[in-house]
């Protein structure tokens, strides 16, 4: 119970700091809308084309915009040596990590929930046909993105090339989860239910979440303290 409260305190602190300045949220949102707009120039958004690529397009937008938020997750603590204070705080490193994870999770999810309707309007896609399943994939995929992003955000926080290194580390590791999310999202956005193939991908996505949450929790003390 104590542990849950510790996670909650870190999460609420992060969300409050973000909602006061909105520095990551605004950048991430503007970036997501920008990519959605730019994609419409790279190909002719016909009905058949969208049937093929909607999942891939959406998750590329989510992954790119998400990294902007995740970059700030630990970098926000650098001024005034807040990071040292957090590490010295009487809470386990895993609680700090999970608190930051949940805070980023909420922020990234918020950006996604704004991007989805805009995507539907720009590309004439009725994406609500399989809403509960789509939400499930959104939650699982976003968790994968935030877990990997947060642990690598902590890893790269003291490096000069932080903004460059985070995506370089995050995207390759994230690839299996992104592929799963893209494949399932494409099917769901087209209004089809989850079939046997998508079930396999869903298992991959859940497995990815479980495995990398466990690995991150096992290594987080090393990452934070060195």
């Amino acid at each position, binding site marked *: 119970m104590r542990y849950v409260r510790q996670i909650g305190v870190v999460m609420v602190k992060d969300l409050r700091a973000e909602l006061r300045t909105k520095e990551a949220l605004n950048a991430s949102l503007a970036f997501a809308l920008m990519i959605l707009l730019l994609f419409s120039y790279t190909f002719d958004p016909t009905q058949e084309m969208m049937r093929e690529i909607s999942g891939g397009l959406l998750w590329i937008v989510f992954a790119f915009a998400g990294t902007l938020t995740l970059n700030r997750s630990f970098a926000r603590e650098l001024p005034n040596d807040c990071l040292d204070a957090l590490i010295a705080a009487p809470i386990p490193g895993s609680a700090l990590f999970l608190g930051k994870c949940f805070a980023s999770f909420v922020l990234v999810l918020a950006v996604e929930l704004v991007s989805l309707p805009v995507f539907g309007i720009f590309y004439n896609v009725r994406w609500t046909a399989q809403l509960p399943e789509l939400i499930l994939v959104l939650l699982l995929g976003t968790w994968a993105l935030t877990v990997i992003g947060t642990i690598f955000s902590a*890893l790269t926080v*003291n490096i000069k090339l932080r903004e460059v*290194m985070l995506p370089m580390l995050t995207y390759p590791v994230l*690839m299996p989860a992104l*592929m*799963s999310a893209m494949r399932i999202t494409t099917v769901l956005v087209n209004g089809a239910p989850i079939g046997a*193939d998508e079930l396999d991908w869903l298992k*991959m996505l859940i497995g990815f979440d479980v495995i990398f949450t466990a690995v991150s929790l096992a*290594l987080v003390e090393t990452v934070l303290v*060195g």
Partner: protein
Amino acid sequence: MPVASLFDASVWAAMLAGVVAVIASILFLRTRNFFYDALALAVTEIGLILLAVGIVTGAVAGRLAGALWWTWDPRLASALVCWLLYAPYLMLRAAIEEPTQRAASAAVVSIFAFVDVPLAVAAVHWWLARHAAPAQPAGMAQATWWSVLLVAMLGVVLSWVRLRREQRRRAADAERRSEQTV
């Protein structure tokens, strides 16, 4: 050695390098002995080189057999994904100055990459299985046991040379630092 089996052989050798790298990384985090860090660096670097050679020969073998350079063959594609997984390991090392932090961060990345390899390979195979990939990848053959052995031995020798060089460099570095403090 026929070009056709070189791809397969170098993939096996690179996998071996990945296993050694993750074991060395875990041992470093446990013992903080910098020998293991140097070992992980040496095998990762040589493994990446072997994998790059494998990917290029795979593409060339496909071309020689009359197909295209790149046909999204699942084995070639997953080799490329693994290469992209491990390349940031070296970039991260180059970006961190402080030796202990560099070694610990690199070890963490090595562990993440190793855990991700089976998932990524499976995902690439599933993905390409749906996309009418060529039934039999053109121009590539299964590696014979001796070609695997030969490439693996080459890898071991190269890693050993690289390890010695890294250790000499570190020794020189330590000497320079101690002179500065005096």
